[in-house]
Structures are given as structure tokens and as C-alpha cells.
């Protein structure tokens, strides 16, 4: 079924306003968009992190659906327990409200997912629980004060890998968690951003429909940690895709599919220079780091094209994946892997 703004707009908002997210936060937007598609028959579990902290502070909660937070590294294991309880209680006809199906969604930031919670996530995916794990990836430990994570891109300034007189921020490229999840051979894995609302909603719908575990990696531009104006979070998300820094793709039953290919690829530096975390890279002497980052993005894109079977000579397709909310965005054109 085609996803339209009109339809999404009629859905109840399951995350109330009045929570404590920062001005310009794209994370709460991610949560609300996911819940528009998931609906009220959903239990969410959270890893410790910024979205957990800002949505629940006793005696308040922003959640209009059942919610559990246990610890930092165990959101996947916790939700796997909830999902198992659902099956066990349903089998004996003991559910508190009768439901054939419910959605079980675990959320973690990149700290709770790429790093401290990776084992718990891997275990839950391998066990095949009928659950969706969503990583809201803001590329550092924002909740504890912008420390580097294994999702932080090379060259970014963080509190634990700062730019200084002799160091230029993080020294390693980020880990490719999405591909690690693909290697679990689960039915559905995808990447998206909050700007690409139709792409996001489509992916949430698919992820919740498949029989078995699904994983979504959602880039979450962070005004505080990335140092950009609070007004431009969505633009940063859009341009992360336009530069190929964060490609939109999905892997359904092992089959890679690129959901959007920029017509005119935006140079990476245009994206980097809007973010204070990369400011130091524009000082004289760091040209090689900028060049290396562009090279890395290009290489990763080439690898992705290959995985999607699109590495032959092809014309870039004209696609629009829920771009401007005001524009007449068409359904994303699907380029099937060969």
C-alpha cells in the first residue's frame, strides 16, 4: 500500500510533545515517524541513551504505548524477552488483551547498538525473534557528552578524540554495522534518515511485516554533537544521502537494493563544512584528511553498488524518496539488483 503524507497525518501521535529533547533534535522526529507506522499495538524497549532520558523522567512519560527501559547494553535481549512472553502467553490464551500480532521494537543509539549492546543485539537477531531493532545513529555518545563511538566518522571532533594541535579528531573510520546485521542473514535490514519520510515509513512497514527479526539503521543528525544550527537537522540528513555518506538501501532476504541514487552527487566537503565537528579539517594542512574522507565515501559507495549488482555502466536514475514535504514527491523508483 502506498504511503502518503495524508494517510500518515491521520494516524495518532504516540509520542507526546513536552518531552525534553533538545531544540532541533531529529531523534524525537524519528521516534514519532516510526510510531505513525507501527501503531498502538506496539511495545518498545529502550537502551540507555538520549532518547530514553528525554522521553521518560519520572513521574512523566512521553510514551502512549507500553515502554520498558532496563540498561544500556540490553535493549535487544529485553525486548526478546517481551516477545517470547507474548508467544508463551498467547499459546496458553492468557494475553491481557487478545491480539494475533503485536510489534516489538527495541531502540538504541549508536553507543547502545554499535558498541556496548552489540552482543545482545547479535544474539537476539540470531535467535530469530519477531522484533525490530532500530539504531538511532548520531555517531557519538551524545548522552554522556559527545564521546567517540565506533559509529563516529574519521576526522570528527569528539570529547574523547578531540581535534588538537597534533590530532585531527577520530583516527578510525566508522564500523559498518548495517553490513554486520546483514551478515546475520535476517529477513530485513535497511538504512534510512528522518528526512526521507516515505522511505522511512516504507522500511518500518516492511520491517514489521517480515517473519523474524529486522534491523533499521537511521542516521540522526545531532545539533549538539555535530554543531550545526538547530534549524537544519533535516537538511543535514538529506545531504548525508546526497553525498553518499549515508546511502538509502535495504537488504531483503540477502538481496541488496539501493533505494535512492543521487543524480548529482554532492561533494562531501559541502556537507562537512556545515558541521562544527569537522571545522578543524578546513584548516590549512588538513586537505589530505578531507580528500581521504571523500575517497572513503566513494569507495564505500562503489562497494554498495557492487553488492546491489549495479556496478555496471548505468545512468543514474531520477528518483525522489520523500524529499521535500512540499514537493510532489514520487514513489522511489526501485532499481532491482541483477
Amino acid at each position, binding site marked *: 500500500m502506498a504511503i502518503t503524507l495524508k494517510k500518515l497525518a491521520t494516524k495518532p501521535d504516540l509520542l507526546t510533545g513536552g518531552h525534553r529533547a533538545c531544540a532541533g533534535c531529529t531523534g524525537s522526529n524519528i521516534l514519532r515517524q516510526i510510531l505513525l507506522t507501527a501503531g498502538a499495538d506496539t511495545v518498545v524497549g529502550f537502551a540507555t541513551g538520549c532518547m530514553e532520558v528525554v522521553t521518560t523522567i519520572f513521574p512523566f512519560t512521553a510514551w502512549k504505548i507500553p515502554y*520498558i527501559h532496563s540498561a544500556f547494553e540490553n535493549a535487544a535481549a529485553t525486548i526478546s524477552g517481551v516477545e517470547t*512472553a507474548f508467544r508463551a502467553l498467547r499459546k496458553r490464551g492468557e494475553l*491481557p488483551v487478545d491480539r494475533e500480532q503485536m510489534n516489538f521494537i527495541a531502540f538504541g543509539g549508536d553507543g547502545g547498538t554499535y558498541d556496548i549492546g552489540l552482543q545482545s543485539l547479535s544474539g537476539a537477531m540470531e535467535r530469530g525473534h519477531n522484533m525490530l531493532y532500530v539504531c538511532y545513529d548520531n555517531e557519538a555518545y551524545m548522552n554522556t557528552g559527545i564521546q567517540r563511538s565506533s559509529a563516529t566518522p574519521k576526522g570528527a571532533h569528539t570529547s574523547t578524540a578531540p581535534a588538537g594541535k597534533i590530532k585531527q579528531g577520530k583516527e578510525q573510520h566508522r564500523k559498518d554495522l548495517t553490513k554486520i546485521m546483514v551478515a546475520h542473514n535476517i529477513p530485513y535490514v535497511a538504512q534510512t534518515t528522518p528526512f526521507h519520510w516515505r522511505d522511512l515509513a516504507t522500511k518500518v512497514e516492511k520491517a514489521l511485516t517480515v517473519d523474524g527479526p529486522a534491523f533499521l539503521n537511521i542516521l540522526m543528525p545531532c545539533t549538539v554533537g555535530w554543531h550545526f544550527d538547530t534549524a537544519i537537522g533535516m537538511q543535514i540528513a538529506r545531504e548525508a544521502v546526497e553525498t553518499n555518506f549515508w546511502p538509502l538501501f535495504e537488504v531483503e532476504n540477502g538481496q541488496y537494493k539501493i533505494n535512492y541514487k543521487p543524480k548529482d552527487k554532492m561533494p562531501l566537503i559541502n556537507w562537512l563544512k556545515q558541521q562544527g565537528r569537522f571545522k578543524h579539517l578546513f584548516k590549512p594542512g588538513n586537505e589530505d584528511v578531507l580528500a581521504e574522507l571523500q575517497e572513503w565515501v566513494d569507495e564505500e559507495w562503489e562497494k554498495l553498488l557492487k553488492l546491489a549488482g549495479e556496478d555496471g555502466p548505468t545512468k543514474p536514475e531520477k528518483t525522489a524518496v520523500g524529499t521535500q514535504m512540499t514537493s510532489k514527491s514520487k514513489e522511489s523508483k526501485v532499481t532491482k539488483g541483477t
Partner: protein
Amino acid sequence: MKQELVALTGNDAVAYAFKQAKPHVASAFPITPQTEMMHKFAEFIANGEVDTEMILVESEHSAMSAAVGSCAAGARTITATSSAGFALMWEVLYIAASLRLPISMAVVNRALSGNINIHNDHSDAMGGRDAGWIQLYSENAQEAYDYGLMAFRIGEHPDVRLPVMVNYDGFIISHTADALYMLPDAAAYDFIGPYKPAYSLLDVENPITIGPLDLTDYYFEHKVSEMEAHNKAFEIVRAIHEEFGHLTGRTYDFFEAYRLDDAEIVLVILGSTAGTAKDVIDEYRERGVKVGMLKVRLFRPFPAAEIASALSGMKVVGVMDKSVSFGGWGGPVFTEIRSALYQSLNGMPPVHNWIYGLGGRDTDMNQIAEVIEALREIAQGKPMDPVNLLGVRL
């Protein structure tokens, strides 16, 4: 109630008890000597004797985390562990208790690393004594089985709603075949009854938020409510002990008073060593020496008043600790007992401590006799250090 006399290892006995409770969900990760308990339980599922859903997780941290999720969803949930696995759960033990989730866990007591050692002592469970769980200690397979049943009643009671650890000594109890009486399945389940959770994450028509951020303005009050649940647990445990006694003929109390009535010299012991001590005490009694034992069953919450009242007026007390509190003054049982006696109005006997059996070092009858001999000398006025070691090369 007609009961069957069977020969089972402690692990199998507890697996039976847990099966009889018909849990919805079991999560577990293997660790010696807990493994066979979960093997047996998996066998019950494979043979259709119980329809529990198992979550075979990738670590004990996830075992306890999945148990938290499952129990918060309203499912009767069991798990089991030992030693390092217990230590890996430690963070989540506190969460399970704070969220007031009555998970039942078999803790097959084993020494903590390092160096790695698979044998019995109490350092694992003692390391979690402040986590908010109810802790029950068993002397033998019978007690482990009985507490395996009672754990559900105690933890799930609406006035308690706390997770429960059924402790039994690794290998000594877990792997040794022992004679015990078992209730028929139906009678056991009648006693336990179905789990009626106060809240469930699966009640999507009444959504709740579990585990919010809880700061300076409320956290303290929530901790106090957890303390109050422990205080409430005393009367609930007593009532369930009584009901279980009527059903089975096996009487339980917070502690077992063994030949304590007219005793002058008292040993305080947890777990299987109490069995050895009973034989030694009997021998001394035959020689006219007034020795008795207080075997602690309920260690959390700690029945301080009852224990103080049982021990005050004694000539001398020897507390045996199968774990060590490094840098502390004596083992954890010793400090609890001494502290309980401090306010005793009927006279505070001298209390001495023996750290024993670490890493499964065998504790034989001669060692128990050694402690009794030392206590006799103390009773006659001989000065001795309060904290001592037993059965170790110095």
C-alpha cells in the same frame, strides 16, 4: 499429602520444582555447575511435560535481561546461574528487583574467578546480597526442591513482588543424588497457583512506562518502597512456610534451630555444610557437650530480630562464612550476625568467625570439630581473634 520418595540430584530436583510451577518463559546461559538444571528443564519441554518457551541467550547478562523483559510482560519467568554468570548478571539483578519483577532463579553456588574455580562456595550469591532479591539457602536437595516451589509464592505475592534466588551448593548438592519427597504435579501447582501480574507490557490498552529516569526527587522514595517490600516479605515467607508445612509435613522457618534449645555453644551455617555439622554436633551431644546450630535459610531479607533472640544468652557463637569480604572484618554472615546481636537485650555472646571452604575446599567433620573446640576454649575465657580461617595451609 501423599508424596513420592525419589532419588535425584539437586539440579534435577530444582528442575522438577520449576517444571511444576509451569513457567511461561525460561532464559538461560550454561555455566558449570548450573548446566544440568537447565538440561533437565529442556528435557521436560522436549518431552511435552511443560510448554515453557526457552530463550537460549548468548550470555548471562542477556539471560537476566530477557527475564526482565519477559516478567515485565506478565510471564512467569525462571532462570538459573552460577559464579561468573551470576557476576555478569549483577547489573540487571538490581534492575529486576527495582522493577519489582518476581523472577525465580536457581543459583548453584560456585566460587568466583580468579583464579577460575568451578567448585562451591558462596562468593557469587553473597556478591548479590544487596541487589534487592530474596535469598533462600538450601542444605540439601529436599530443601532446594521445596524452596524451588515456594520461591514463586513468595516472590509473586502482591505485597512482595520481588525476585527470588534459590541457592544450593554447587556439586555438593547440585550433582549428588539425594533422597527427597516430591509433591505430585497437580498438588504442587495447586500450591503455587497461576501468576497474576500487577502490570503487563502486553496490555496495550493500558500502556505503562517501566524503568524511567528517576532522579533526586523520586529515586529515594522508590528505594524505600523496595525496602518496605523486603520488610513485608518476613510475614509472607512465614505464612508460606506454614502453608507448605501443612501440605508436606516439612516444617520451615527463617532458620533451622538444630539442638539449640539448651545449647551453650552455637554454630551459624548456611548451605550444605550444615549437614556435616549436624553429625558433629550429635557426637558432641553424646559426650555431653551442649552444642547446637542455627542454620540460616532466609538471608535476604535478614531476620535479624529472630536470629538475635535465638542467639542471645548463648555462651559463644561461631559463624562460618563460605565467602570472604576482602579487606572487611570477617565474612558477610558474620557481620550480619554480630550486628543483629549488638542490640540484643538478653546479653551479647562473643561471636567469632571462620572463613572456610573457599573454592570448594572440602570441609570435613574434623574441621567442624576444630571450630567447636575453639569455641569451647573461648567459652572458658581463652582470648582468640574474632576472625579466623579454617582448613587452609598457612
